[in-house]
């Protein structure tokens, strides 16, 4: 038999039909202001953690909307909770709470063993 280990069929495309909305629904339930995000990037620009590493608050929001649970659980721990993003946000989104809720839901998923 031939060895096909050099071939790894894969796709990077975001597939909206396989959308993991567990985090998003949880966040929106408790922090509706998140719905108004316009991805302006103001949060990322001011972010204390983002100043030190490639942590990107705007992308956190984006991943939340795209159901990227795994990426979120990798990245969310980098936030320092300093709150600058919340002060900067032109839509007055309570970003600190959004991050807190993501952390909460991820910790819930871990105990429920729902993680992908």
């Amino acid at each position, binding site marked *: 038999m031939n060895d096909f280990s050099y071939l790894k069929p894969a796709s990077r495309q975001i597939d909206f039909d396989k959308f993991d909305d567990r985090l998003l629904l949880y966040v929106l339930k408790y922090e509706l202001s998140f719905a108004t995000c316009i991805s302006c990037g103001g949060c990322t620009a001011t972010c204390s953690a983002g100043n*030190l590493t490639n942590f990107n608050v705007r992308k956190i929001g984006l991943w939340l909307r795209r159901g990227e649970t795994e990426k979120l659980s990798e990245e969310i721990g980098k936030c320092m909770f300093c709150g600058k993003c919340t002060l900067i946000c032109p839509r007055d989104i*309570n970003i*600190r709470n959004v991050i807190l809720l993501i*952390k909460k839901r991820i910790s819930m998923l871990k105990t429920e063993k729902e993680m992908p």
Partner: protein
Amino acid sequence: MIEKSIIIPFLIGLIYLSIIFIYRFTKWIRGLSKLDKLRLMQSLKSRRFMLSLKEIFMEGLLHHKIFLKNPILGYMHMSLAFGWFLLILIGHIEVMCAKNSIFVPFHLAIFFRYFETTKNFAFSGVFSFLMDFLLLFVLSGVCMAMLKRFKKQMFGMKRTTRLKTGDRIALISLWLIFPLRLAAESMSANLHGNGSFLTSTFGNFIGNSGSETANFIFWMLYSFSLGFFFIALPNSRYMHIFTEMLFIFVRNAGIKLKKHNNTFTDIQVYSCSRCGLCLDNCQLATAGINNTQSVYILKNIRNKNLTDEQLFNCLLCGKCEVDCPVGINTIDLRITQRIESTLQYNSSYSYLEDIPAQKADVVYFAGCMTHLTPGIISSMKKIFQMSGENVWFMDEEKAPCCGRPLMQAGQYEAASKLIFNNTKKLLGSNAKKLIVSCPICYKVFKEDYELGKMEIVFHAEYILQLIKDNVIKVNNSNERIIYHDPCELGRTMNMYDEPRSVLQETGKLIPVKNEKQTAWCCGGSLGNLKISQEERTILRNQAVEDYLQYKPDILATACPMCKKTFARHREIKVLDISEIITNSISKPTEEKITKQKTKNKIHENEFV
């Protein structure tokens, strides 16, 4: 024998209560850490024991603090607690006199008028008068309590706590005890004439319709109400009556919550009388947030149904702690609950690379919030330039957070990682002084960092020293200044005077009604993770509108967060202390400038 049966309900209640008490108190004390137990033991042997007793008397019985805050409410609590206490005490003395013995059955005083139908012992008249008087005293409290339940405004209270079933049973039985005692004693007075001005009057009122049976029934009801009350008590808020005593001993022994729940949490939770004073002072209510105040948090911890939405919806401003008549550490308690609720949250700050520490005499840590108020940074730079000290601006470019916001969000472990990293850098600088311009940072540096001999100085203190040392000379502009006490600096760190002393040098400081301990929270608090921006704006407006009445030229703050919050209001000019100082610095003469320049050569490169 049937006669004696009236004590049974009371006795059952009392036994049940005692068992619960012994069980709980033992559990709580055993649950304290070894060190805390030692502290408790030692405090019992020291002067603190007397202090605790005094406090128990002053607060537990007289309700001195409530009295100061609200005399009517204070009287109500005092009449119930102190009155009842005296009823028991005098009652016992009466029994002792009557029986001529020190050792008398403890229940006798409770049912004395039922068993002792004669008035033939020494001072019996005086006693019966006293007892009637005390009963009247207590009854006045009961009446007020009933009134308060239905018409809280009469007591100057905007809000009162909501009741649960356990509380309701206890409340009703408590309300019934004294009227029933009055009725029972009046019956006895009617039959035996052993009453005084109150009971006799009521006894006479009954006239001929009194009988032994009715007497027995009322005394039995009285006994039942006591029994019910005792049984309901452990599951009601009245548990606080006794827990509070233990709490006072424990608190006075210097025991504090250490970032995780232990039985001290329970002691505090059970010590809460749900008096509702924390409701009135909580600014959140202005914004329509009415279910997250400390009393509800304590209740929900007890009932194990605390939600994140409640727990994290608190400004951590500390106003409730100031007012708490029991002295519960509401802030510590809440933060501990936050820590417990976020234990599973992960965090990773491996990216906090080792930025080499710079050797300096003084380190300046601006903090995240100050980075959003560049006016404060440039003022601080000017001030450092004048001081001529060798300053390292630690977070000028790569700015890690101090860790306090994480603490406030309950993520203690994550905060510790930041603290560890910052500590390493701070110690590496070999500086003697760390200057911070943000109270949020100041608090965490003071309380949670271990920086050895390094002195942690708030910028107001530092500026004050520079003024005293004549390094900075300021002009007094006579502008009307209101100083806003930041929560994290005032109520929780007790720094009230230094900022005021600084401001007095530059303008006319106007005293306002809500200052120091009772100062407003600006609404911007990082402690609250749930409040919406609209709600924050309501809080801010509440403060600003109050300040505007005094027609200030400047609203001075010592906190970048407060500054940022107030600055969104268009009608008030907000400046940080450091900015006010740099604005009012007297222009140094030419000679001085050159002198300064040579002195500050290194720093000019750094900061200009």
